């Protein structure tokens, strides 16, 4: 578009297209509303996924504690649900009043899906109310199955709602190629706009990420309750809940990078310059920060497991190995976080002969990073396996052989990862990209194979003693807090990377942002904005959880006084 025409459009658009929000500006207002809404939404979409799984475990294994856990998860949902809706309304009103032209454009295309969204939201709300308030009433026999079905239905509504909202934002990133700036939005078929290039990768990525996020927030809630607990029973319950939340978060986290990789690939294929802006251009530094934060996740997750082994009889036999696992994780974090283009003074750049370090530069490229992260995933899995095995003595006759096969699987997977990592330096980029698939497949095959053997090994295993839930030092609980804060931060950062690569476009190459905030924000400003969003979210979450605790406390004290072991609401 010629500059003159653009200027003309900006002048014509400036009054009716945009309005200014006091003090912080329109962009910051919409940013905060969208981000905090998204964080709450991720929580209320992620938690039902594992609440329904926990309830199923309770039904099939006839273990009441899982049922109680599922109910407590759902109680958290209830309080977070209204906050999600409130922030959703704030976002909608902000868009309507601050970006009316853009919202008019989106609603011209997606109007029918917006009506469907509202209808489904209505259904989701009432399914949630039925699910929670009907818990005690439909507790036995067939009624319990009907209740569980409500949980599944809740997930179905929630997932469709998320898919619909995802279609709006992915359209902004990757509108169908036949849509041009002059295309009348009312002529664009809704499904054509929905099924755009990045829609499904985002759907899958967010579905998994929601589980990770929900698990981490639940674990943080449990740690808060653990630290505030007044009795051993309460401490034991919340220790266990924290463990389950952390387990869910870390398990889902392991597969999340693969979904992210798919999304990145689709972005590249859709528009290479968008991909380069994200991975090699000015957004590339976000990936160094991301690497650092994910390293924190790995370290904190493993730390929690290692400290937790103190309360498992028999775990002491694995103790000597943890320091070596830690060494792998630290070296992995160093490699993963090594920037290719380093922040350096002109003197340092002159000494290096450029922005790439002649020796450390080899750690800044994809081969090294993929190798590091895959080895870190394997290490974390090994930690978890030791944790799982700690208090069991297998009795099957092939126990020794089975363990040896498991060890061989680890060695082969690590060897495959290292081989392709090193070989990646000697082939051209297009071949190297394909190597990451082999590395990932080796790690996934190892995880699946080892888990299958481990389940079979555990059949009829003799216990070395019960896990002493509640016997955890308080510092272990701070690891869970760190996990939750880091996940929240990561979500904001990566959301900015995804959204920011559109640069000065509302809809990539279709509808230009002609507002005063059209420039892509600098990374420092973005980091501050994201931190503000994280603080707002965590403060609100702390508040709603505290409120939930207030309502529940009398019930708990009463139960304890009667000598019962029931904890929670």
């Amino acid at each position, binding site marked *: 578009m010629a500059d003159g025409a653009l200027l003309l459009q900006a002048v014509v658009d400036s009054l009716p297209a945009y309005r200014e929000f006091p003090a912080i500006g329109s962009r910051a207002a919409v940013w905060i509303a969208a981000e905090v809404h998204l964080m709450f939404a991720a929580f209320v979409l992620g938690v039902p996924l594992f609440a329904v799984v926990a309830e199923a475990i309770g039904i099939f294994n006839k273990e009441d504690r899982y049922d109680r856990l599922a109910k407590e998860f759902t109680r958290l949902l209830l309080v977070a649900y209204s906050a999600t809706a409130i922030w959703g309304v704030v976002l909608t009103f902000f868009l309507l009043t601050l970006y009316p032209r853009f919202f008019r454009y989106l609603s011209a295309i997606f109007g029918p899906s917006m009506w469907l969204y509202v209808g489904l939201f209505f259904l989701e709300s009432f399914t949630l109310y039925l699910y929670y308030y009907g818990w005690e009433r439909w507790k036995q026999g067939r009624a319990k199955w009907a209740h569980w079905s409500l949980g599944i239905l809740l997930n179905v509504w929630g997932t469709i709602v998320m898919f619909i909202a995802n279609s709006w934002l992915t359209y902004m990133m990757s509108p169908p190629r036949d849509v041009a700036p002059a295309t009348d939005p009312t002529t664009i078929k809704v499904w054509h706009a929905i099924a755009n290039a990045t829609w499904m990768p985002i759907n899958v990525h967010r579905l998994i990420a929601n589980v990770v996020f929900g698990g981490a927030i639940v674990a943080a809630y449990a740690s808060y309750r653990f630290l505030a607990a007044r009795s051993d029973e309460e401490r034991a319950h919340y220790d266990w809940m924290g463990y389950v939340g952390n387990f869910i978060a870390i398990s889902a986290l392991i597969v999340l990078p693969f979904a992210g990789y798919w999304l990145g690939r689709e972005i590249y294929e859709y528009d290479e310059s968008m991909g380069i802006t994200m991975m090699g251009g000015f957004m590339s530094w976000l990936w160094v920060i991301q690497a650092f934060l994910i390293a924190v996740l790995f370290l904190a997750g493993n730390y929690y497991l290692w400290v937790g082994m103190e309360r498992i009889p028999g775990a002491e036999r694995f103790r000597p190995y943890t320091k070596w696992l830690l060494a792998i994780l630290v070296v992995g974090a160093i490699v993963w976080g090594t920037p290719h283009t380093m922040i350096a003074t002109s003197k340092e750049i002159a000494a290096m002969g450029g922005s790439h370090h002649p020796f450390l530069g080899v750690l800044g490229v994809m081969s090294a990073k993929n190798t590091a992260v895959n080895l870190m995933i394997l290490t974390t899995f090994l930690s978890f396996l030791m944790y799982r095995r700690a208090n069991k003595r297998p009795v099957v006759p092939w126990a020794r052989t089975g363990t040896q096969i498991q060890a061989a699987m680890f060695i082969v997977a690590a060897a495959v990862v290292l081989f392709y990592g090193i070989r990646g330096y000697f082939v051209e980029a297009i071949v190297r990209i394909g190597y990451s698939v082999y590395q990932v497949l080796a790690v996934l095959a190892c995880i699946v194979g080892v888990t299958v053997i481990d389940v079979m090994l555990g059949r009829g295993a003799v216990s070395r003693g019960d896990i002493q839930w509640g016997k955890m*030092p308080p510092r272990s609980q701070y690891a869970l807090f760190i996990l939750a804060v880091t996940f929240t931060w990561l979500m904001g950062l990566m959301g900015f990377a995804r959204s920011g690569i559109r640069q000065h476009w509302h809809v990539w190459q279709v509808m230009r942002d002609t507002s005063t905030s059209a420039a892509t924000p600098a990374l420092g400003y973005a980091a501050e904005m994201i931190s503000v969003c994280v603080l707002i979210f965590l403060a609100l979450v702390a508040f709603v959880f505290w409120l939930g605790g207030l309502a529940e406390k009398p019930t708990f004290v009463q139960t304890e006084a009667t000598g019962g072991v029931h904890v929670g609401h």
Partner: protein
Amino acid sequence: MNGIRAAIRHPFWQALAILVIAFVAIEFGIPVLPDSADVPASVVLQYMVTVLVGVLIYVSDNEQRWTQFREPIRAVLVEPRLTPVRWSLLAAVPALVGWVAYGQVATRVEAPPILRSIHPAPPAEITFRSRPMTLTGLENPLRAVRDSLPDFVGEGKRIYYQNCLPCHGDHLDGQGHFAPGFNPLPANFQDDGTIAQLTESFVFWRIAKGGPGLPREGAPWNSAMPAWEDFLTEREIWAVILFLYEQTGRRPRTWEKTGDGHD
């Protein structure tokens, strides 16, 4: 002797030793490796923070080790016999923090560290001498004439030595005799992080548009590279690109083929 042995086994001294060894290895060990250089301060800090986190995890993931680790710290804080050490630390720690803070804020002649986007996103389309040119999917047209490749490389070599040598150097390593005068330094084509990572269309764009044609995303950007479209023809630029890859032994990044036939 026993005291040394006990210290080696003590988690506090182990932690301290790991930190010191890591710092020495990063700050002094890496630069003395063959073809290496000093590690930038920002990277040293990043590495040391990672090691520190690892050390803290090591000393605290076990109750017994954690208790042992805290013993010397506790002793310094409360035991009367360690009063001189306590006072020394009380003076030394704020002095150290002050010294670091001063180092951060003191005015220097040197330009502050900058974070540059080395490979900014290329546009999908450019105008080369007023003619539109689509970069996406663009290949070096000279490669299609296989029989004449040696001639094209020879032509590229001549153009390189006439125009590029003063900055990018005889070895194509960015060490030309003008290079020390520039910030940012001229690109080192031997580095596997430059042309080896890029498609030839990207390299064409950079040569044609030079420093003035860089997008704003990399600001502050003050590259002195001229826009060579004002001096070289399209064919000459493609020829010099052929020479760059031929001489360094690097291969250009190729375009990924997708299922729908779109490159």
